[in-house]
């Protein structure tokens, strides 16, 4: 990808830099470029590569697909057959509930952000989620996968059907940048609505803060598992939500309800971090229990390296499960 400014692509991957880029689609392309530049040594080219089976080698097959380990054991030439040979359906689910509106990192006024950040002048979790979602979508479209998008809160708010057209990416970007961010989160209802429309096996990339009740998340994930879908959960949390390094006594207002509480943050920081760690452990165990990926994204960290880590872990998982 050509860098219009002549600056290395990696430098655009940090949220601080991304937040300065007014064109929304430009941000996503910059992220993907960064991911690619970080992956140039990797044997894997995309997320949708999935091992399926071996078949006997026939003349004309590309020798690079020969499985030399099988040849060594059986003295027969076999070729690996991948699902990448067929397009994969990828559905990106982005949480647009009110809790995603939180952000502690300020940005300059007038940056072309989402509707979540327009009023707060801060890099919100939703901003980070959209940047991640567009980057994922771009990467998948680049390898001809079919990509769909759904925005959800207490249900599906907006949906874009799955297609592998490169032009489809612009629609995704448009929807992400214009959808209001409010309401509560209802995973179960969202899952029900999504699965009612998607029947074929798909890869769901769920981007949310996952601060909801773990029971409802468990219920939703069970539905995905039941329908044999694969799920990658990208949990976006603000750095302040992770560190809770607040100093001044404050009145905390829940972003999704009317709950409020006066608290001196330093006095409860350790308890908060313990509670967060417990919550995270619960989320992690339930997702990995279903065989799904779970990745925590700090909204103050660059998106590209985080996505690269997600891709690396996924390929590693694939290798361990399919012998590639």
């Amino acid at each position: 990808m050509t860098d219009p400014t002549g600056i290395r692509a990696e430098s655009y991957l940090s949220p601080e830099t991304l937040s300065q880029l007014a064109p929304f689609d430009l941000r996503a392309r910059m992220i993907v470029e960064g991911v690619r530049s970080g992956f140039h040594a990797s044997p894997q080219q995309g997320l949708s590569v999935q091992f399926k089976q071996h078949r006997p080698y026939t003349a004309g097959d590309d020798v690079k697909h020969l499985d030399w380990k099988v040849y060594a054991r059986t003295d027969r030439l076999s070729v690996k057959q991948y699902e990448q040979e067929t397009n994969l359906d990828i559905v990106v689910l982005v949480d647009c509930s009110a809790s995603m509106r939180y952000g502690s990192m300020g940005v300059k006024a007038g940056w072309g952000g989402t509707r979540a950040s327009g009023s707060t002048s801060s890099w919100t979790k939703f901003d980070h989620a959209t940047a991640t979602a567009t980057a994922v979508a771009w990467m998948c479209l680049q390898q001809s996968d079919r990509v769909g998008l759904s925005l959800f809160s207490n249900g599906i708010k907006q949906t874009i059907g799955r297609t592998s057209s490169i032009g489809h990416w612009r629609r995704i970007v448009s929807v992400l940048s214009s959808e209001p961010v409010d309401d509560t989160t209802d995973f179960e209802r969202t899952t029900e609505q999504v699965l009612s429309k998607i029947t074929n096996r798909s890869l769901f990339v769920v981007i949310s803060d996952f601060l909801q009740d773990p029971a409802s998340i468990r219920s939703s994930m069970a539905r995905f598992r039941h329908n044999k879908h694969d799920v990658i959960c990208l949990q976006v949390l603000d750095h302040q939500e992770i560190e809770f390094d607040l100093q001044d006594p404050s009145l905390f207002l829940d972003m999704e309800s009317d709950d409020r509480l006066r608290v001196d943050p330093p006095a409860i920081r350790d308890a908060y971090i313990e509670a967060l760690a417990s919550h995270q452990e619960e989320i992690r165990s339930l997702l990995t229990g279903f065989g799904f990926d779970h990745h925590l994204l700090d909204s103050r960290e660059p998106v590209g390296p985080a996505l690269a880590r997600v891709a690396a872990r996924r390929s590693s998982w694939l290798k361990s499960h399919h012998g590639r």
Partner: protein
Amino acid sequence: MVVESPHIIGLVFITPWMALLGIAGILIPLAIHLLFRRRRTTMEWAAMHLVQQAWASRKSRVRIEQMLLLISRCLIPLLLGLALAQPLFDSNWFSGGPVNRYIIIEDGITSMTRTDSGRTDLEDAKDSVLRYLETVPAGDPVTVITMSDNTTTGPTTNPETIRRIISGIESSHLPSDLRTSVSVASDLIEALDDGSRSEIMLATGYRRGSLSDGRKDPVVLDGSVDLVRNTRQTSAPDNLRIVDVVPNRSFVLADADGSERLRNAHSSTATITIARDGPGYPQTSTSILVRGETRESSRNIEWSEGRRTIVTTIDLPVDRTSDADEAFGVEILPTDSLPEDNLWYLNMGSIDGIDMLILDRPAPGSTSWIPYALDPMSSDTMSLRTIDPVSLIESDIRGTDIIIVVRPDLVPSDSMRHLITHLESGGSIIIAPPASMNHGWVDSWNSELDVPWEWDQQVRIHDRPTGLSITDDMVDHLRSIGTELETLLTPVAVERIQIITPRDGCETILGTTNGDPFLIASPPSRSGSGSVIAFASPMDTDWTDLPTRPLMVPLFQELIRDAVSRNGTTSQHTVGVPVESTRGRFESMRSTRLPIIDFLNPETVVFDTPGHWILREDGSNPDRIHSSNIAPGSSSTSPIDDIEISALVDHPVGWIELDSDRPDSTVVNSASVTRYIILILLVLAVGETVLSRLFTHSRYRNPGA
């Protein structure tokens, strides 16, 4: 009025206002706490359930932590204030009630006495009081009584205040009155009437001058009062002192022409009493220097071995060319351990002349002896008129200094009021009985004149003429001729005498050798009335040959001058003795210092220092000079003995000497309590810092989320 230090749970504070500041300082952390509560910011938060979980698990602990922090932060200013307030441990809080302590400290004229160590008695007395205060448990109310004026300060329980009071005491020229001071303390103890214990601490130089009141009756104190005294001075440092200087006359007659001859002829004299204290009374000499305004004189006197008092006459170098009052300073040398009593202030009034009126109707052929006796005086300064008693009118006595009544029997009863008016205005009357044997006049005179004697109609006729004898009162009236009086009296014979019965207050100047009063006087009253002098015999040779004797002239001359001198208010005063003054105000001739006005009686003033003073009648023009001196005998530095000290009080135990007999007290001093508070404060400050970091800063710097 000294404010008592507050007691708070067994503590007494030297600077209680600092404790109040400390208490007020509690408001600072409270205010900060409340301010921060009000300044809470509002924050929208996504992970609210995590905050709620954290708060639910930490709520109790956080509240306790915050309370601990708030308490420690409140205690820091409180303890700081308490430490700065210098608290003292009040042992009385645990062991019975406080002991009321009365410190009597010597600050009179003898307190200036310098001992062999070069320190004054007052400095030694202060040191002994400060040592005594170190043994006084905190919380005991202490009252300080200064011995010179018996002023009480306190009570106060604040040791620093007491020390400040003691340190601020300065010597005064007032006489110390040890017995009265003890009596004042006794009165204060009686006034308490609460059954509490009391202690009197006596800090004095034990000089005889401090017992100058002369009383012997002891002050009665019961066993609930402990008596402590400082160590008695046993040495008597060399101290030569002027006890008294009495001018023989309080005035001089001014000579307008001021010729040298008259100046020398009319020098005045004074009687000076000098005493000495010391370890020994060797043979030595003393110089007496008298400084007038233009002239001075001096003389030496010799002390024989063992002699302690000398009474002698000194010449006052009067400048008679001036018609103003004149001030004198009498100084004795060498100076000694108490130089304050080596100088005496004296003054002489100056009057233009003496106006005399004789009420007489000379019988044909008789001789008027009295005018003859007065005639030799200078005509410039003396005027003598003779009128018939019957014709006496009010204008006759106006401006008259002396009225000599030779024929009292002829004074009409209506004219008696003129004589009384004359007396009330400060004039004097000399009365001689008529030469007749009929003395019916005495009835009206006895009833009209308020004199301390009674004339009798009886006349005593001696078979053999009697002579005249000197009496004790003579010295005061005829001082100038005192040395020659015995010689002058010898040839005088008295054949007849009118019987006069003296009463209390009557001064007999001369008496007959068989004991009858011959010349008597009533002292001038303090209200300014003049004196009445009466002869028991007329100046008639049938009664006495006095008119023909050399005594006649000096006797009348002296009587006239003495009467004029004694009339009216005196101009010689004693420091500390109230003086009635309604006519003007006194100004010191040496400084701008004014005498002290007695505010309980605004018409009196009290001279607090020796010196010369000008009485300004209208506030601007100098009028009369007044002199003030220390009380006679008040500067005696001879030590008083233990018996006399014991005799001050009637007490079951008596005085206990502070430095030798008194057991040590177990008193917690101020530093110990302050030290503990500072230690607690430091621990608290460190604790607050640790707690603050522990409570308000998370221990999880690297969350594992």
